[in-house]
């Protein structure tokens, strides 16, 4: 297959773009990311040798296309091509196209099996605003057979559906043209991803398809089939979790020991929901102790080590291939990271040096290096980095297996069981045979670990962090695992089993309904529609958001751009990130909240004075307005991204009208600068603000005429209205958004927004709460932005509500005097 190489100044951008390309192309297209330079302190730049390696990585007889961003990226791309052998050079082409759009268009087109020249042509035109000239006036009707269709899938013919269409149409040899009749567009080539995207076919549009007489019927049939499949819209949703079979017939292995065995319930955290009942099986996957044995020939030992690394890599690749569709492109990159550890010059160098210096066996040295490295990670504060320790041990164990010739630790269970781990690792998940495993529990682990991300996609219940006591539960003991509540019951009694069966039935029914509803618009039973959006805080979440059923991103937290680095990100870097997101969202609006960095976040280069009370301190818009050189860079980057798709700007922590005006003034000033720099942006983009300071809620009527939208941040609003620190366990009773005081603030803000004819959303934790849903619907909230994984369930909740009931309820709860009374009233609605 034709390969793609991405050359960018930013490694993150190159890799992020590769990720989107992997997901969009439908089939695995070879894409290599060659971004950044090998300098941790100044990682932005391009490395010609890295480009050269990347080209060779994806090289095949069918050719390679190289894409680059600006300046040295281009020069280094051309340099690398010059450095190839002449017979290689013939196959490699530099593709002069906008990086993001070009790569994505090429990936889709390659996935659809188009020839090289066609792929290049598509890529070059990817960012064109108008259909390419050759597509314009042309009598598509002549000599062809035309038929009309109505497109019904909710997303219309956007990226993924369009890619499917292109793939299907490419199976035919003759010309096929598609015209969007509803929007009065010129016919375009139906084998061209750009042509189709530019036709902007949305749900409900009528289109015509014209094909050559000889194959017209077959073309129409293929098209009908796509319509029948909803253009894959349903198929992209993850399938509902399969019901877990209780091993009714499974022989009950009696607990061998009675004294040491625990009984009762262990509480943990839920990673994947579902229910399981069966015998417990312990799996050991910690680093074994290894005796350092002296070796006579260190060189041979080094050789053995190198072979073990290669074998481990081959094994990872093979098991990924075997896992097939079971694991997504996003998750595959976890194992790419594992492979990269196997190539890490630091690690390899240290091991080789120690073998040579000390003359001891490779397995002992490897174990020591892996344990040290894992220890270093485990000691870190950041939960994400901390979780990497588990990955290191995972790779470590794999290599060790090749060095010692040990058997695979993979759960070779003789009967369907619930597996127990000290710490679950990514490889364990990959090695699982779901048909033989009922559920998984682990003593430790958190939601952010790689294993958790992988395990959350399993169709069996998974519970982490149930504690050390798990080790004391005897092998074979009957256990009940409740993945929904995050609980493990050891030796459950018949009553507990009966309850579980009932819970499981309810859960399965609901889950199936929620999944089916996920991609449809959120509507109450009487047809009132609201917008459901996702909250995001990193580029990595694009995949999750894309399949969540979100219509838009209601909140992009941008703080991640500023963390863990030496200097603030520049305009270009930020722009590339926003633009990548815009491209990945495929036309769904992106609400970017300008940075809200407070004194409590470690951002050394900002050089901020310590604050006694960071929550009430110099943060959010207050900081941005005081440091325009910081603010302007972000605004410019966001504005520039708006040239590529719908983007909104949102200001955090606005307290006064003056602040809001000053912020808008900055936006205007930055727009003027961009104009003079000749850079494109959307000057009609929506500008809004968060309502999270009580002063803003109180003054909402004065603020509303100045913005296009409001979004309520319930976490901060609650903490400020109730004067209760959300991190202080002693005042958690007060920190409750259901307090009527908070609800009245929300009601007032919604009223003010609608009086000024603007829309209002909510992006705090309350927005996804099923209990809050009827109140907020009744108050008239327009947009609900939440954690992507809550969306399916939320749509289902809304589906069961009727607007008039919600209105009555909302009016009632505003008159109540406590949060408990509010909850009770809501429960009454569901009960009645």
């Amino acid at each position, binding site marked *: 297959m034709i390969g793609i190489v991405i050359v960018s100044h930013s490694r993150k951008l190159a890799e992020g773009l590769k990720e989107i390309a992997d997901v969009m192309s439908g089939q695995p297209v070879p894409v290599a990311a060659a971004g950044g330079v090998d300098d941790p302190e100044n990682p932005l730049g391009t490395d010609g040798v890295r480009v050269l390696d990347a080209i060779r990585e994806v090289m095949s007889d069918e050719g390679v296309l190289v894409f680059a961003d600006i300046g040295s990226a281009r020069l280094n791309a051309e*340099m690398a091509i010059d450095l190839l052998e002449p017979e290689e050079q013939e196959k490699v082409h530099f593709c002069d196209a906008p990086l993001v759009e070009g790569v994505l268009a090429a990936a889709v087109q390659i996935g659809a099996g188009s020839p090289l020249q066609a792929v290049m042509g598509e890529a070059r035109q990817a960012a064109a605003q108008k259909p390419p000239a050759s597509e314009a006036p042309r009598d598509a009707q002549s000599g062809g057979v035309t038929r009309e269709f109505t497109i019904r899938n909710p997303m219309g013919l956007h990226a993924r559906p369009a890619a499917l269409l292109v793939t299907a149409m490419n199976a035919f040899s003759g010309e096929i043209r598609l015209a969007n009749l509803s929007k009065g567009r010129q016919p375009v080539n139906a084998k061209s991803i750009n042509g189709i995207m530019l036709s902007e076919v949305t749900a409900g549009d009528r289109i015509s398809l014209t094909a050559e007489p000889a194959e017209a019927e077959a073309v129409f049939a293929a098209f009908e089939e796509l319509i029948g499949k909803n253009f894959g819209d349903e198929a992209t949703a993850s399938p509902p979790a399969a019901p877990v079979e209780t091993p009714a017939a499974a022989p009950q292995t009696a607990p061998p020991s009675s004294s040491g065995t625990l009984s009762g319930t262990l509480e943990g955290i839920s990673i994947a929901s579902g229910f399981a009942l069966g015998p417990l099986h312990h799996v050991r996957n910690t680093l074994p102790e290894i005796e350092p044995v002296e070796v006579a020939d260190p060189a041979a030992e080094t050789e053995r080590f190198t072979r073990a690394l290669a074998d481990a890599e081959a094994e990872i690749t093979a098991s990924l291939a075997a896992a097939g569709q079971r694991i997504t492109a996003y998750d595959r990159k976890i194992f790419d990271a594992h492979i990269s550890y196997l190539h890490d010059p630091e690690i390899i160098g240290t091991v080789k040096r120690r073998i040579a210096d000390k003359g001891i066996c490779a397995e002992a040295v490897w174990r020591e290096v892996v344990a040290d490295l894992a220890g270093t990670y485990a000691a870190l504060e950041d939960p994400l980095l901390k979780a990497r320790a588990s990955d290191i041990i995972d790779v470590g164990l794999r290599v060790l297996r090749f060095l010692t010739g040990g058997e695979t630790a993979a759960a070779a269970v003789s009967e369907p069981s619930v597996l127990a781990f000290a710490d679950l690792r990514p490889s364990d998940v990959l090695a699982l045979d779901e048909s033989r495993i009922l559920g998984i529990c682990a003593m430790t682990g958190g939601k952010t670990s790689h294993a958790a991300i992988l395990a959350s996609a399993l169709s069996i219940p998974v519970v982490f962090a149930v504690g050390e006591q798990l080790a004391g539960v005897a092998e074979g003991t009957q256990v009940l695992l409740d993945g929904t509540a995050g609980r493990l019951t050891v030796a459950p009694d018949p009553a507990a089993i009966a309850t579980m069966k009932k819970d499981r039935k309810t859960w399965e029914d609901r889950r199936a309904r929620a999944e089916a509803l996920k991609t449809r618009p959120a509507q109450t039973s009487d047809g009132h529609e609201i917008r459901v959006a996702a909250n995001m805080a990193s580029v990595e979440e694009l995949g999750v958001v894309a399949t969540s059923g979100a219509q838009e991103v209601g909140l992009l937290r941008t703080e991640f751009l500023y963390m863990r680095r030496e200097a603030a990100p520049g305009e270009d870097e930020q722009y590339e990130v926003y633009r990548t997101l815009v491209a990945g969202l495929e036309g769904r609006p992106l609400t970017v909240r300008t940075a809200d960095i407070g004194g409590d976040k470690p951002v050394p280069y900002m050089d901020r004075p310590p604050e006694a009370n960071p929550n009430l301190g110099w943060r959010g818009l207050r900081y941005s307005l005081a440091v325009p050189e910081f603010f302007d860079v972000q605004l410019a980057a966001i504005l520039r991204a708006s040239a590529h798709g719908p983007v909104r700007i949102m200001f955090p922590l606005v307290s006064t009208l003056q602040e809001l005006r000053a912020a808008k003034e900055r936006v205007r000033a930055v727009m003027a600068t961009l104009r003079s720099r000749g850079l494109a942006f959307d000057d009609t983009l929506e500008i809004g603000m968060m309502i999270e300071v009580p002063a803003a809620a109180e003054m909402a009527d004065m603020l509303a005429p100045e913005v296009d939208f409001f979004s309520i941040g319930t976490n901060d609003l609650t903490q400020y209205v109730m004067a209760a620190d959300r991190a202080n366990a002693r005042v958690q009773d007060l920190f409750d958004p259901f307090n009527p005081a908070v609800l009245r603030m929300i009601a007032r803000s919604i009223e003010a927004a609608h009086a000024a004819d603007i829309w209002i959303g909510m992006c705090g934790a309350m927005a996804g709460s099923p209990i809050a849903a009827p109140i907020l619907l009744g108050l008239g909230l327009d947009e609900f932005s939440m954690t992507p994984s809550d969306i399916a369930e939320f749509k289902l909740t809304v589906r069961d509500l009727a607007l008039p009931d919600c209105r009555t309820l909302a009016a009632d709860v505003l008159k109540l005097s406590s949060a408990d009374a509010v909850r009770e009233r809501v429960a009454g609605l569901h009960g009645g």
Partner: protein
Amino acid sequence: MTETLTTAVTAPMVRAWIERSAKVLADNRAYLTELDAPIGDSDHGNNMDRGFKAALEKLPEGDDIGAMLKSVAMSLISKVGGAAGPLYGTMFLDGAKPLAGKTSLSADELAQFFDDAVAGVMKRGRSDVEMKTMLDALAPAARAFREEAAKGSDIRAALKAAAEAARQGMEATIPMQAQRGRASYLGERSIGHQDPGATSSHLILQAFSDVVEEAAQ
């Protein structure tokens, strides 16, 4: 001071040139970055320092000048990070092509080296003189070297003339409007600043002249 003629540049001199360049670029790291700030992205000093440090580290043993210069080229291509990487990389790579296996260079061979080097940069950057780039230092230097060498004078004098031409070329970039690289995005606002790439070119040529001069004494 006795006037001995320098008729050849030897492998140790080339090695000393690379070492000296690395040192001078490290010493001028802040200065080059400062020049890159108003018309670029403030990384040229860091880029060149990182690149030449790597070049020095990887420099092969032995007396094969072609191999040495080729190795320098590959290090720069990989480690500079900015536009200067592939540009200086091509300069050394194309310049070194006819020099494989040579352990010393005559004035003619050096003149050819400079000409090939300049042609390489022009090809890679799709650029020419008066575009406010490193070529404004490199091209006059190559010409000065060839002219001075043709007078029959020795390599030392020719290198001195080249370094001086590079210095003048570098200064001449101040009033120019940039037409290549990041600085060209600024249009007229690039006028009035000295080009960082021309400056590093001058430093590198001056280093060459200095080490050959010192070797002769």
